[in-house]
């Protein structure tokens, strides 16, 4: 083989993996990179007299002065309270189900069911339940608890907690199934040995169940944070529309309104970039976590 042919062969060998990767990279580029590039570009521009002008960070400065946007961010942060609540409820219920209480298989299906329902269906049903003249208040009236009749969705103070309740109700099933699946793969001997050593129920959970679930809890926590930051649009849109008085406004709805109601696609893009970055951090954390859990599993 001549030296030039050898060089060509070497070069080809060097390029080979990239050539194999190329089709996938092109598809990923078209599906993900292009929209992101376009989004980032738009966030630095503004329309003026038929042209889109580069305006630097103006859109970003604008949104951080916008009270409605700040309210949306505050609401997203408030909704994060639901994450530890979801983790706690999912954990407790998973432990009970793992204890194989009577009818546990039925309960497992029932508790997972809300997670399978479309958000719009859940939102609509709960809208009717929580209206001032809705099912819940009618029920409270029937059982003589009139003083607890409240305008769950019509009050600026109650609408966000009500929304939070619905999110927890729907999303907690995912946590239960995750935790239960993990617990079922834990070796029974661990629990048996602890029982022989005289560990009571609390000690079993504290020293075996929770440590065994640690990575799953972390995973569920991060997925729930991502959900709260960037997947609650459906709930808000159907149940409250961001009201009353912006009390349930969230960043996703703010993006939608800016882009499609107020014709401010560039402002919407700037908020989207911020949301993408924040969510990206959590996605990155989640990836790291998975990496770590794989490493732990591979350890002898």
């Amino acid at each position, binding site marked *: 083989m001549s030296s030039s042919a050898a060089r060509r062969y070497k070069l080809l060998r060097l390029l080979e993996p990239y050539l194999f990767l190329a089709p996938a990279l092109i598809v990923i580029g078209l599906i993900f*990179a292009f929209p*992101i*590039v*376009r989004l*980032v*570009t*738009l966030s630095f*521009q*503004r*329309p*003026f*007299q*038929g*042209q*889109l*002008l*580069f305006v630097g960070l103006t859109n970003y400065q*604008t949104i951080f002065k*916008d009270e*409605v946007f700040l309210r949306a961010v505050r609401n997203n942060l408030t909704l994060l309270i639901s994450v530890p609540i979801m983790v706690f409820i999912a954990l407790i219920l998973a432990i009970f189900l793992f204890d194989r209480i009577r009818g546990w298989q039925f309960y497992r299906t029932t508790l997972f069911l809300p997670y399978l329902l479309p958000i719009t269906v859940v939102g609509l049903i709960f*809208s009717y339940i*929580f*209206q*001032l*003249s*809705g099912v819940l208040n009618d029920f409270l009236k029937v059982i003589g608890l009139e003083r607890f009749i409240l*305008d*769950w*969705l*019509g*009050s*600026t103070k109650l609408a966000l907690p009500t929304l939070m309740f619905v999110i927890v109700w729907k999303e907690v099933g995912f946590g239960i199934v995750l935790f239960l699946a993990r617990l079922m793969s834990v070796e029974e001997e661990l629990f048996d040995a602890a029982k022989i050593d005289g560990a009571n129920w609390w000690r079993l959970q504290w020293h075996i169940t929770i440590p065994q679930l640690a990575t799953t809890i972390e995973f569920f926590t991060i997925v729930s944070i991502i959900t709260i930051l960037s997947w609650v649009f459906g709930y808000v849109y159907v149940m*409250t*529309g961001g*009201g*009353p*008085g*912006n009390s349930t406004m969230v960043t996703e709805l703010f993006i*939608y*309104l800016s*882009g*499609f*109601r*107020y*014709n*401010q*696609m560039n*402002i919407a893009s700037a908020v989207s970039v911020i949301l993408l970055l924040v969510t990206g951090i959590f996605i*990155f954390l989640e*990836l*790291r976590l998975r*990496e770590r859990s794989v490493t732990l599993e591979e350890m002898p």
Partner: protein
Amino acid sequence: MSKTRFVFVLLTLVSILAACAQPVTPPAEQPQQPAATEAPAQPAEAEPVKLVIWWWGEQEAPGAQQWLDETIAEYQKLHRNVTIEAVLQSTDSLIPAFQSAAAAQQGPDIQYFWGGVWTLEFAWSGALVPLDDLIPAEERAHYINNFERTYDGKLWGMGWYLSGNPMVYNPTLFEKAGIDLNDLPDTWDELIAACDKLNAIGVTPISGGLKDGWFGGWLFSILGRQNLDSEKDFMKASIGQAKFTDPAYAEWWERLNQLKEAKCWNADINSVDYQQGQDQFVQGKSAMIFGNDTFLKGWAEIIGWDNMGVMRVPKYGSGKLADTYVVTAQGLGITSWSQHKKEAADFLMFTHTPDRLNAWFKYTGVLPADDRFDTAQIDQPILKQIFEWVVQSSGPNLENFIPSMLDEQANFTGTQLLFAGDKTPAELAQLTEEVAQKWREQNPDQLQNFVNWYTK
């Protein structure tokens, strides 16, 4: 490559691509228009043409679907080379879907628009073509409410049907409460007195639903007008040449609050949406609504014409608009990317032929936006009354003359805050002014368009 490094490389690539990206240009310039609409070609010789219409309207004018299907079938019979596909949009997807189409320069040939700013925003962005070169002036002159769609001396859409806002009442409940049907409330004090009487017999005086926001905009348009003389006054305040805190603009918040304090409204107004609020009237749970005349025929089919009456909104102000009946023409426009503008214009004109105008009224009970409509067809007294108001004292729907951000963040939000008891009328007037100011700061381009619209 570790995942960390991969993410880093990906982000770097994205940043480089973002930096290198060409500035995104707005939708293409409007193409040159033909001098005039020519008669459609003969079927045997003509090239096949497909027109796509994205429309909305069945939601507020039940029967519109039937009319459109029939109209398309008849048009296709006359023009065998033309196929028309009509896609009904939901209220929430109407604007977003068209915005996406405009960004892609692909989508319908004919698009449905609400009046005023809802149409002109798309004219300003280049998504629409003016009809002046496509539809003869003589024809255009017959369309009602053209002023809503006129900008820079050109007409950017065609009115299809009229949508007005009467106050609708239940005569049986009025009589039961002792309200004289021959002396209906026509001042604010009389309206509040009527609320007291209705409350006394355990009937909700007026029902509405604010949860989805839209009704807040209606209230602004119906009540906020009474101290002012023209839609231009509201454009003036939007562009910063007047203030929404001025008493003439702000008083409606106080008046709405008076109705709230007098328990005129359904208690669940904040937790039900617009449609549910209107339904309470149809179900006989409330005695009045700020209604929409496009729904009258549909309601009559449920409760009968005898169980409905219409009246003008009681007055508190003395501006010229206080005496007007709110009317807007919902309309259709032709998109700049359409390959068949002439044919689209021809179809639009076909919808305004006498036979189609009369059929429209027959199917929907709604007045078409054309003065050639045979008014002898109106035999129902309530609809006759509506027609009389339209002819004698129609006035603009103010939501069509303010920025949509102002409508949403001041009117939609403000009415919810008022009924939640979180803000006073004065605070809400201040909120409106702040939103207007924010809109001006955030949207220099839209502001310039509004200034041009206001001044020209």
